[in-house]
């Protein structure tokens, strides 16, 4: 089995390869600059390079897995397809009107909070039809009007995809299905997204949004995946291509082309899955992952060996009601700028210097002090080991930080430490919000650190949160690609099943689950997965009657009376954990039933060894600052490769490796595990 995994990021495309050698299974990785205009070019080059590196022929590749930001960028840069939208008459403006609330309460020049740009008024039509909450037809579908509207949208407005969201389609989808039949008969090539297939749940604005995004991404994703498959075929790779979904599982090209919204947040999900695998191998069931790069910090939670997902996520300001790894993004990274307000208050970010002009130390014209500049002043980063071999100017960093310090009466070193404290505390706050809203205490978790700045700032953040263990992966830069290798092919199915629990007949629930199961297996078989290797998980969304938000709890197979009782108990327990109270006597109801089918691609349990990398030796020690006093202490500096198995390095220490620098703060110690990961432990807190 030769699996190639590719993570296409904004700056670099990381590639991992898992392959066989006579000595056993090995893992290699490499980096290739990303090609922004057509990301497929950089990807194909990267795949060629890794195959050369491990001396494998393209034909030997059995699986190609990848994570992509194509969907994310299409939305950020407003480069999606031209979408036409059909809604129930009277609701044609739902996409643009939204719910009417705003995020910044004291702003007088507020901005629209809805994605009206996907389909402005001229590309939206109201359709005469109406289905009631109980599924009965109040107004029959005006088929002629549908045909006229579709013709008009295609011929006059030149739409490339159609989004259809009719009221109560999740109760009875017959009108939506008929709309597609009519549209497809007129224009067989026109992609049509139906809301009951995308997001079969009530609240029309939220469902409309996701359906619109699905249609918006279709032309972009189809073109991208088509191009990708062609180029890989030309390069001699004939294997199945899988793409990471926002939920943290893989899906075939076929499945993604049909449901492109599932890959909107493909990129960041892979990193979390990689961290999940590492944490698991390290024996940590509960972990918080922190991916801190130049402009932002991504935080996610792993509880009991599973990455937490949400179905109530957002992208920019827009609701995105689809399962996704629950990643919180904060505008806090190495490039975050420190600034002083009119009353002598010190702040960091959310503005970032980005990579152009970048931190002051980049010498590209940036003069404002950033977190990275502060890291240089504190002695954490060395000009000799800067990521990507960049040449940097430490004096510029000092000048910039000194300037900030002068405004608030601090020395350069104190100011640098202050900048770190502020950014670290903000990330700690973000982490608390992520964990506490789920009812978890961060102190019960380990911190997995990656991204350029993650291992630099991570332990200070851990201290802020009272966490005592942390992991820095063997290759923090390649973690996303590694995550793809660890992921499973996953398909989720859901159906609305609204019924008080007391009235629910186990046989009917079982019947509904069987239908979901059949759909899930069908999709696996389409990907040539042997049905016997597929695992299925069943869950139910339950809530107190009267509440609007549900909790998802597992339910056993097959469904029987006892199984329901157990699910109910799990619901109460979960409600108590998340909300701090529960009422065993209050009536509760089922809302949705869900299944997740998964298939693990790498089913081999033999250990994997890692290919090493080489770096020059640093000076044995240098002065660093670890507290607000601004005092420097002589600190050991060493290469990760030079830490022997079993050796314990006591902090303070700085550990360099090819793609990152780990700061081991005083009070922490560090060793290397068999996988090459750094394990950091805080000694009894001082």
């Amino acid at each position, binding site marked *: 089995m030769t699996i190639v995994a590719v993570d296409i990021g904004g700056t670099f495309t990381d590639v991992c390869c898992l392959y066989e050698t006579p000595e056993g299974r090995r893992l290699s990785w490499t980096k290739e600059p990303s090609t922004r205009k057509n990301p497929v070019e950089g990807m194909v080059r990267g795949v060629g390079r890794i195959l050369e590196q491990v001396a494998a022929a393209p034909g030997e590749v059995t699986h190609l897995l990848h994570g992509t930001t194509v969907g994310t960028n299409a939305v950020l840069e407003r480069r999606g397809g031209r979408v036409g939208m059909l809604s129930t008459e009277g*609701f044609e403006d739902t996409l643009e009107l939204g719910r009417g609330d705003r995020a910044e309460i004291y702003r007088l020049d507020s901005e629209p909070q809805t994605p009206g740009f996907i389909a402005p008024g001229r590309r939206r039509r109201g359709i005469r039809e109406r289905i009631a909450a109980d599924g009965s037809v109040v107004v029959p579908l005006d088929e002629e009007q549908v045909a006229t509207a579709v013709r008009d949208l295609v011929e006059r407005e030149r739409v490339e995809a159609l989004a259809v969201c009719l009221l109560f389609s999740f109760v009875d989808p017959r009108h939506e299905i008929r709309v597609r039949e009519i549209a497809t008969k007129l224009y067989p090539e026109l992609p049509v997204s139906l809301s009951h297939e995308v997001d079969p749940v009530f609240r029309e604005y939220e469902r409309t949004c996701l359906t619109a995004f699905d249609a918006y991404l279709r032309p972009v994703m189809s073109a991208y995946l088509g191009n990708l498959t062609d180029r890989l075929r030309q390069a001699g790779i004939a294997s199945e291509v899988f793409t990471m979904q926002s939920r943290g599982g893989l899906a075939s090209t076929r499945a993604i082309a049909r449901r492109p919204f599932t890959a909107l947040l493909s990129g960041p999900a892979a990193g979390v899955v990689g961290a999940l695998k590492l944490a698991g191998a390290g024996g940590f069931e509960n972990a918080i992952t922190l991916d801190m790069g130049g402009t932002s910090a991504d935080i996610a939670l792993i509880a009991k060996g599973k990455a937490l997902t949400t179905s109530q996520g957002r992208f920019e300001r827009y609701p995105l009601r689809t399962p996704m790894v629950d990643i919180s993004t904060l505008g806090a990274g190495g490039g975050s700028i420190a600034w002083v307000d009119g009353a002598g208050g010190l702040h960091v970010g959310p503005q970032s210097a980005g990579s152009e002009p970048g931190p002051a130390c980049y010498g590209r014209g940036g003069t404002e002090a950033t977190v990275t500049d502060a890291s240089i002043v504190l002695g954490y980063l060395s000009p000799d080991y800067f990521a990507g071999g960049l040449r940097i100017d430490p004096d510029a960093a000092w000048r910039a930080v000194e300037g900030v310090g002068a405004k608030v009466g601090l020395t350069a070193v104190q100011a640098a430490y*202050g900048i770190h404290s502020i950014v670290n505390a903000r990330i700690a706050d973000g982490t608390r919000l992520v964990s506490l809203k789920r009812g978890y205490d961060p102190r019960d978790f380990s911190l997995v650190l990656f991204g350029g700045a993650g291992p630099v700032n991570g332990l200070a953040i851990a201290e802020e949160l009272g966490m005592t263990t942390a992991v820095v992966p063997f290759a923090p830069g390649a973690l996303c690609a590694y995550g793809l290798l660890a992921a499973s092919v996953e398909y989720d199915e859901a159906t609305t099943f609204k019924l008080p629990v007391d009235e629910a007949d186990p046989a009917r629930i079982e019947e509904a689950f069987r239908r979901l199961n059949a759909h899930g297996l069908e999709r696996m078989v389409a990907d040539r997965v042997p049905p016997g290797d597929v695992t299925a998980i069943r869950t139910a969304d339950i809530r107190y009657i009267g509440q609007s938000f549900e909790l998802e709890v597992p339910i056993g197979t097959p469904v029987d009376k006892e199984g329901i009782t157990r699910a109910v108990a799990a619901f109460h327990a979960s409600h108590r954990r998340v909300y701090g109270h529960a009422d065993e006597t209050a009536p509760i109801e089922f809302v949705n039933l869900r299944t997740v089918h998964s298939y693990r691609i790498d089913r081999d349990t033999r250990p994997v060894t890692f290919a090493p990398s080489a770096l020059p030796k640093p000076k044995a020690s240098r002065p660093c600052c670890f507290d*607000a006093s601004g005092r420097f202490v002589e600190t050991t500096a060493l290469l990760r490769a030079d830490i022997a198995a079993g050796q314990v390095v006591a902090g303070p220490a700085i550990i360099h490796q090819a793609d990152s620098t780990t700061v081991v703060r005083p009070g922490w110690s560090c060793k290397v595990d068999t996988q090459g990961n750094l394990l950091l432990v805080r000694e009894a807190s001082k």
Partner: protein
Amino acid sequence: MKIDPVTLEVVRNRLDAIAQEMQNTLVRCAFSTTLKEGGDCSCAMFSAKGEVIAQATANPTHLTSFLPAVEHMLRRYPAATMREGDVYMVNDPYEGGSHIPDIIVIVPIFAGGKVSAFGCALGHMLDMGGKSAGSMITDATEIFQEGLALPVCKFFDAGRMDETIWRIIERNVRVPKAVYGDAMALIAAGRTAAAHVSALIDHYGLDAFEALVPALMDHSERLTRAAIQKIPDGVYEFVDWLDNDGIDLDRRIRIQVRIEVSGSEMHFDFTGSDPQSRGPANCPPGGILAPVHFVVRALTGHDIPSNSGCFRPVRVTAPPRSIVSAERPAPVCIRYHTMKRIADALLGALATVMPERIPAAPYGSDLSDSWGIYVPETHEHLVFMDIFAGGTGAGSASDGVDHHSCDLGNSRNIPAEAVELEYPIRVWSHKKRIDSGGAGRFRGGLGIERELELLKGEASISARGDRHYSPPWGVNGGKPGARNAIVVVRNDGRREIVPGRVRLHLQTGDRLVGMTAGGGGNGEPWRRDPEAVLDDVLDGKVSRAKAESFYGIVIGADGAIVQTATAQRRAELAKTTSGEQIDRGETGLGLELAAD
């Protein structure tokens, strides 16, 4: 104890995060559609002395309501007498409440054996009793008709609920289950604050926390003063009008404001505003702070940390027994629209001094209706509350936003599907209202049209709204937006245009159509970019007729701009420019509908 800028910033962020966590807890635990879908609820944290420390992103009206509530609570229950697990509650508008339906819950937070802060949560209950369902009685003439008033009381004593208080509430409200669920959600929010603030104090120590809180206020005060200093010194005045008080429907109510800016201080004087009204348009004592605080925060910069320090440079003079500060037993339940009009007047006073900051008037008042539905077949009594926004005013460089809550409110509309799943109501439309945005070089945001039909039984509705008579004003040559309107379409087809504050009765098959106002325009319409006007026509925001009459854009049969006719029409319009900075339009009920 000296506080360094680093710790200050770290703790400030932490407190903001806790306030937000309270709000999340509240919305997710709530039972009524008003809270869980509508978001008509808010959270904040207060110091032991009764000052705001941090606020969640919520409703500005509520956030200010906590000030008098905490003050009255401390007067009745000194902090020294409080115990861990206590929960205090109030809704009496004359003892720190806002109006009867808003229940305020206050949870003391302990550290080192004494009260060090308070977690506060407010939620608009579906019903608190009184003369009509929803306790929003448009024609009340005394507070006694508005429902059950609870003075500040101790709802939980050291962790134990006072059953008597609950039984009294249960007996007096129409939907006790929903009220109970929502009250528990408020308490859960308060406890969230207690848990996290205690942890924060553990981390930094009580001494440090007690020094930090005033330091946070001082910091915000300094920033606010610096921002006020940039407003030119002077006295600025403005008058705006409320439609009526719900009783004397033909009498407009005068809101007069006088703002004196001198150095880093502002004085807000409401002398000259009308006396308190017979109907419930009055602000309760302290209610005037909501629009004043909103305007101060909005003008000095939304990035200044929100706490009591922001309001130290501010002085308020409110005449007693007036529409802006009533005395018991005047009714107050419909005070929200008054507060919004006060915000309009305050911004109007400064609109000519800060034209780049202050937009034209926004829609001015959400349309909200409380329904009491009786279904004879099943003997069911249901209570439903609907609320939806209009368009915001155009800025000096950007159009207003359609259907967008502003100034004192921040509710969400109730999804049609949520309404129909729970009530015998069909929502026939929720769509933009063409031509409702005030014309201007920058156009006001659009209002919406929302049509509801009663499917079963009968309903008694308290409809609330304002700006049914005077439209949202335009600025710098911009035109006013369309005013709010409500039309009842009877099941036999008869149409009735009704004023904003009225109690209505619907029979099965009757429909209620609410049309919200659009924002005022900014700058002369004939200066608007012709392409922007064409886009508006194509997107259904402006009709061809109005494109021609207001904007001077003539569109041909082929859908393109007719250049010569347009140039001519624009030249004519340029001659008629009045040069007035504030365009208030005509006053009258349903003028836009009459024109149709």
